[in-house]
């Protein structure tokens, strides 16, 4: 009998809550009653080139270092070179000093230099 009374009271309480709170859960929250549709101002961009496919492995590959010769490049690149060739002894890393300084070189000249060096990948730096 007590259980039946408790169930009855619970049902009444739920109904009262439902009526009082305006069918909570089926109506928008008070904070969502006004909708403003606006344009994303970042506009459109065009992709004309895709990033190159990654290499499957670094064994036996040639990697070009491309540097702006700044921000301790003379320390960071030799260490990167050392670490890579320790891990992949058959890989060849072309030092940045053997390629044009990326700060100021014409884009076509840089691309041609990388092509001429026959590199499979490039590490570009430093820091920027």
């Amino acid at each position, binding site marked *: 009998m007590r259980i039946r009374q408790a169930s009855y009271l619970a049902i009444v309480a739920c109904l009262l809550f439902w009526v009082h709170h305006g069918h909570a859960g089926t109506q*928008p929250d*008070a*904070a*969502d*009653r*006004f*909708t*403003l*549709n*606006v*344009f*994303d*101002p*970042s*506009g*459109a*961009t*065009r*992709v*004309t*080139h*895709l*990033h190159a496919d*990654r*290499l*499957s*492995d*670094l064994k036996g590959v040639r*990697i070009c270092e491309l540097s702006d010769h700044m*921000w*301790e490049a003379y*320390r*960071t690149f030799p*260490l*990167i070179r050392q*670490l*890579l060739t320790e*891990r992949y002894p058959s890989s060849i890393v072309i030092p940045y000093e053997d390629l044009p300084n990326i700060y100021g070189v014409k884009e076509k000249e840089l691309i041609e230099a990388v092509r001429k060096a026959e590199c499979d*990948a*490039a*590490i*570009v*730096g*430093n*820091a*920027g």
Partner: protein
Amino acid sequence: MTVTRSGFTGVIENAFSSRGFPKEASQIKYPADMFLPDSDLSPLRNKLDGLIAGLTRWEPRVTTKGVSSAGMLTVQGSNYPDALTRMNDLFLQHLWSDGLPLLPPTEERVNWILKGTDLPDDREIGEVLPRGGIATPKSLAITLAMAGGRPEYLPVLIAAVQAILDPGLKHERMNTTTNSVYPVVIVNGPVAEDVRLNSGYGCLGPDPLQPAGAAIGRAIRFVLLNLGGSVPEKTSMSIYGGPARYTGLVFAEDEAGIPETWKPLNVEQGFKAGTNTATVYAVSSTTNIPGGETGTETAVKASLNRAAGCMGIPIGNYWFATYQPEGVAGILLMGRRTAEGLSQRGWDKAKVKKYLWERAKVPTSELGPRFEIWWMPPKEILEDPMPIAVDPQGIEIVVAGGKQSGHMMWLQVGCCPKRLVTKKIDLPSNWDELMKDSVGHLGPRMPRN
């Protein structure tokens, strides 16, 4: 893949985006301190696997070519002011705002502003670097909507953006340099009065009687920020930026005050008198020069000597101009009375420019080692004293600032334009209707000062 210092990933993303690549790039980030002298290089060892992964396993999110357009955003609130506040918060989170309150770029408001051009909404004006966002009448109307602009401002904004994107202005450098540089837009032709651009008192600042410059200049900043991605510290490395980066400097030449023997700026730039034009340059300061009296020949020379003294200072910005055949060291603004007085005493623009150019030269001994390292010009250009431009034509003079002769203003070149760029302003076929609307909304135009 790139070796990047923490905090510079946005610079790299924009560099890729500006060259037509998807902006997400294979980057490995290291602490900024690692790139300083005597630094600890252990992060290179610790992140070797990450560097190898960047060369072997990194996958771009964008794998197809084409144009990706931004769409609409939905912002909700308890009422309009609440939704507007939330939109302003959202735009700040996305780095699309200058921090001042924005008006909402709703479809209705943007379409209203697009009444200001006959161009198709999607006609490409150019790509704004470094990000490479595509400027179109619609994307510019969105910036004007955010900035509080009106339809009649759109033709001026379109011409100004065309000028900014001209290779002569090198806007990609303006948007990324450490230099604190911003665009100046000088409008000639009857459109200036039509749209309520100030050419007189206070023309470089706020003016409720002639308010167009503020919204047009603010919209230009949104073009550079949102389409160009010129966000401080992420892409724009400008050390100070400057207050003019909020609204630029957008004003009109006081054509009614130009002496008969002098030519307006746009005529000097090759346009017919009376043509509606916007001339753009990249400047880095506004230096007030008290004086400008012309009552006697002695007073004339004293005024010009003061101006030359303010102009002839040993700063590197000038050498961007001295390298260029059409380089301009800056723009000297003078009020109507000063220009009239100079003209009456036989000083035409060419004579004034030559006098200023001769007296604004800087002894090379004052230029210092930074000049030698960074800006040393080719030997055939180097002189002692060093001129601030290749020739006197590299000093531009514009009449603006009201009727008095109390002050002049020097707008000094910033990084790194090659020349002034002027573009014609094309008015839409419904211009008369827009002018009627303008009077209806803002009241009758006040007489120009």
